[in-house]
């Protein structure tokens, strides 16, 4: 169990990258980026977790319970906002680029190269 979160973290990162590497559609690519990003939330929350801990909201917790780390949760919150905004921006690129070139396949549009 204690290694499972790390394995899932690595897996999500790699499968997201794999999706980007083989993507034939820019919109598909954005979703893959979203998957890769979720690996970072996972790692952050995993390292702040405390076995049998309670949420770090002190008002409702039973006495004696150990709250988990609030700092990583705050970091993960920021991370989620960043992920959402960057995804939105890339979707707009995809949308506009589709208007110009008429295709979503990054391999069919004439790229800058060389």
């Amino acid at each position: 169990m204690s290694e499972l979160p790390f394995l899932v973290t690595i897996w999500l990162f790699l499968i997201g990258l794999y999706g980007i590497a083989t993507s034939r559609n820019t919109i598909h690519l954005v979703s893959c980026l979203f998957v890769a990003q979720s690996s970072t939330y996972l790692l952050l929350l995993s390292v702040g977790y405390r076995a049998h801990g309670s949420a770090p909201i002190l008002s409702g917790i039973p006495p004696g319970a150990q709250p988990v780390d609030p700092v990583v949760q705050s970091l993960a919150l920021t991370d989620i906002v960043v992920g959402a905004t960057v995804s939105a921006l890339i979707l707009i690129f995809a949308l506009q680029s589709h208007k110009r070139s008429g295709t979503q396949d990054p391999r069919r549009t004439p790229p800058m190269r060389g």
Partner: protein
Amino acid sequence: MNEILQAIVFVMVAIAGTGVVTTRDPLHQSLVAGLFGLLLSVLFMVLQAPDVALSELVVGAVAFPLMVLLTVAKTRAKECE
């Protein structure tokens, strides 16, 4: 008990993430991505992070799929015309 639940959710998240990547059609993918966001927020709940779970729910399961859906709609509409 708690540990088994966590392990199950972790594995489900990994499977759903794989599902998002291997669904090549963006329209279907946005639905799978919504499911993935939902599962992530369940996982965060299990990890005792209700704030993060709520964020992931509104972003990952609602706002992000909505934006993807709208982009797909735009590109599909053009291809139809």
